[in-house]
């Protein structure tokens, strides 16, 4: 059978489909997003984005209750949001198989923290499988559905960025259709978790974990590879691959189940090797858990924080470093940035000019914290901006500077609405800015409840954002085009001065949604006074000539949005001809 190149995320989608999953639901979040984007295109499935991970897991619980198999996807921090239903679903168990993909981001490539979801598995006592490459991602996802129904529990598949976004060859199989569920019968003893019932289910949960520990001790998901017994390494996920490359002779206990751990096999492995070490990244979950079984874990000096690589493991093992060329550390950094034509840019330019204190949120606009805009004071979690701005206000403010909360459309739907309800309820007089760019942009353009675009293009409706905000009780609601810089400046000045709560909705589509580019602009060198105001917009198309200090515009980058034209007081930014190809060649 031919094998195809799939990412870990695509393989998880394929595994769920082969297992007969009828439904997929999740909220986009790097590195989990492509899983549902793949699943939704497979045959005979229903898939949807939920406004947040808690809702997604609750929807999945309903699918499971109705007797169908369901895949739920989220990133690690999304699991914080979904934790509430998670802990109780561990008690209720399932009807149709319920598998949760949680994708962690060691190294924080695209996240605000580095939390290790394996701790959730142990905390909530929900079994967790941990594939190390795409082939295992498919196989383990199929197995997860079997285990979910066999042991009557939700089951996690945990990936990390180097599993989710690594591609390798995978053998795909046919879909195994699941039989129609038997007739539905109410079962409050299992599903109504009020104290009397929950106490009984708590005992069921304990018994289940005992059974699953015995299963882990015999399952092929965990695997001993005995080679040189002077060093035995316990590892899981992509770290297994790093270990095999770095130390090919070492004995390995590869854990395909992060929870529950195979206690007997860990003891036997420890007895078989002279020295047992654990290789894991960003957390010491395995080492702590193994030590708690009374097994000696020798020190192994891999870095505590961030991602591992074969090199980090070779270093920890005391192997010589490879010969390398000299690194150049004099280079300027290249941070990510807002795209040319981004509708967020003028808003942050106004924040900076008006010296506003900005409680921020999560999305592309978080890049407004970076120079030269440098106009964001906080970024904590999805929806935090609104609550934090209210908190600053009731603490008496932070001096004379106005405080503004800034949040994106999808983030507002995810976790901002309850914050706004609080601000209205408790009499806030602050200013809340919603950046409505008509899409969930940072994760790669997913639909959301605000724009009404659904994952499988089923009919839906746009959410009337201004109407919702008014219905919550905000009387001052302004909708403004952020590409009109004078209007942005004016509305921000008026609303921060107002003595009552106001919401400004800046509405313009993400620059990457705008297919028709305008003609690019150029700088009239004679008119340019080197004032640098246009450069402070932080547009990647605009720079300052090193020698003359005058501004220049890279026509190959400029999309003709005209934001810079509006900030130039000397009319030095003018239209040029149509864009020519790079390097002048054609």
């Amino acid at each position: 059978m031919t094998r195809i190149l799939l990412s870990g995320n695509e393989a998880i989608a394929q595994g769920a489909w082969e297992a007969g999953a009828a439904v997929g639901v999740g909220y986009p979040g790097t590195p989990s997003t492509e899983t549902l984007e793949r699943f939704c295109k497979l045959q005979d499935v229903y898939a949807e984005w939920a406004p947040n991970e808690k809702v997604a897991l609750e929807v999945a619980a309903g699918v499971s209750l109705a007797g169908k198999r369901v895949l739920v996807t989220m990133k690690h921090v999304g699991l914080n949001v979904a934790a509430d239903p998670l802990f109780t679903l561990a008690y209720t168990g399932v009807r149709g198989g319920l598998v949760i993909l949680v994708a962690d981001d060691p190294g924080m490539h695209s996240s605000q923290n580095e939390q290790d979801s394996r701790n959730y598995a142990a905390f909530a006592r929900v079994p967790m499988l941990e594939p190390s490459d795409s082939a295992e991602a498919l196989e383990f996802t199929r197995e997860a559905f079997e285990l979910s129904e066999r042991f009557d529990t939700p089951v996690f598949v945990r990936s990390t960025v180097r599993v989710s976004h690594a591609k390798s060859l995978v053998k795909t199989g046919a879909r195994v259709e699941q039989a129609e569920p038997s007739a539905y019968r109410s079962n409050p003893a299992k599903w109504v978790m009020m104290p009397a019932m929950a106490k009984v289910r708590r005992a069921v949960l304990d018994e289940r974990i005992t059974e699953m520990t015995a299963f882990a001790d015999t399952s092929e998901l965990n695997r001993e590879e005995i080679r040189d017994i002077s060093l035995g390494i316990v590892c899981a996920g992509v770290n297994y691959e790093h270990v095999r490359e770095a130390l090919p002779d070492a004995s390995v206990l590869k854990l395909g189940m992060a929870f529950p751990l195979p206690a007997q096999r860990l003891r036997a492995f420890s007895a078989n090797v002279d020295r047992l070490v654990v290789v894991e990244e960003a957390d010491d979950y395995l080492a702590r858990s193994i030590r708690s079984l009374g097994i000696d874990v020798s020190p192994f000096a891999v870095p505590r924080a961030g991602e591992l690589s074969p090199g980090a493991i070779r270093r920890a093992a005391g192997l010589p470093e490879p010969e390398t060329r000299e690194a150049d550390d004099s280079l300027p950094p290249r941070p990510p940035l807002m795209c040319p034509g981004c509708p967020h840019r003028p808003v942050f330019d106004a924040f900076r000019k008006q010296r506003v204190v900005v409680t921020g949120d999560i999305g592309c606009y978080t890049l407004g914290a970076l120079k030269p805009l440098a106009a964001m004071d906080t970024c904590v979690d999805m929806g935090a901006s609104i609550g934090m701005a209210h908190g600053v206000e009731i603490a008496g403010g932070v001096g004379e500077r106005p405080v503004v909360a800034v949040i994106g459309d999808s983030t507002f739907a995810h976790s901002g609405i309850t914050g706004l309800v609080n601000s209205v309820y408790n009499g806030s007089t602050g200013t809340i800015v919603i950046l409505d760019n008509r899409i969930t942009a940072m994760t790669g353009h997913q639909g959301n409840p605000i724009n009404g675009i659904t994952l499988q293009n089923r009919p839906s409706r746009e959410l009337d954002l201004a109407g919702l905000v008014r219905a919550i009780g905000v009387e001052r609601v302004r909708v403004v085009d952020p590409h009109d810089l004078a209007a942005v400046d004016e509305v921000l000045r008026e609303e921060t001065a107002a003595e009552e709560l106001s919401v400004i909705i800046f509405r313009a589509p993400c620059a990457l949604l705008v297919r028709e580019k305008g003609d690019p602009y150029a700088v009239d060198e004679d008119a340019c006074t080197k004032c640098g105001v246009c450069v402070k917009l932080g547009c990647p198309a605009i720079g300052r000539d090193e020698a003359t200090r005058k501004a220049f515009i890279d026509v190959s980058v400029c999309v003709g949005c005209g934001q810079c034209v509006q900030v130039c007081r000397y009319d030095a930014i003018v239209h040029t001809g149509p864009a020519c190809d790079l390097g002048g060649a054609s």
Partner: protein
Amino acid sequence: MSTTTVMLCGVGGQGTILAADLLAKVAAASGLEVKLSEVHGMSQRGGSVDTVVKFGDEVFSPVTDPGMVDHLVAFEIIEAVRRVHYVKPEGRLLVNPRAIQPLPVLTGDAAVPHGLQAVLADEGAIFIDADILACQAGSPKSANVVLMGALSTGLPFSEDTWREVIARRVPPKTVDANMAAFALGRQACERGSCEL
């Protein structure tokens, strides 16, 4: 064969991910094991990005370390210098000499050191004017395929396999331009040119 490691680096949005996908598919079509590792999300917004492709009879880790890369393909010159230390002393450097100024440089908060091209030439880099060749091929967006053409000269894969994979992977309307781009990249590299 033992494992070969290729690193593609550039600026988010330059097409490194598609190029890496082509290479991985060529390796797979040639009967080898292959792994590819990339990063999506925030860094893709114009940040510094790299993608690693490893292939051979057996491939374990999808990532790599300094001193372990056999072929570095840089889509941009500053990013080439940023990753030179990843390349084995005997490894190969293919560099598109185009510079894309990082924002801190555009705003005057940082400067690019002078003489990057000389530094790379000292390291034995081969310069491929991928953007200009792409325009010659008929599509400025085919610079990534120009670079794959250049890379292909040092890899044990047949030209036919490359062409089949490219034809399947790029938008139908752009197949001709991409074939031309691939050929121009090969020629530029076969000349071993360091013309600039």
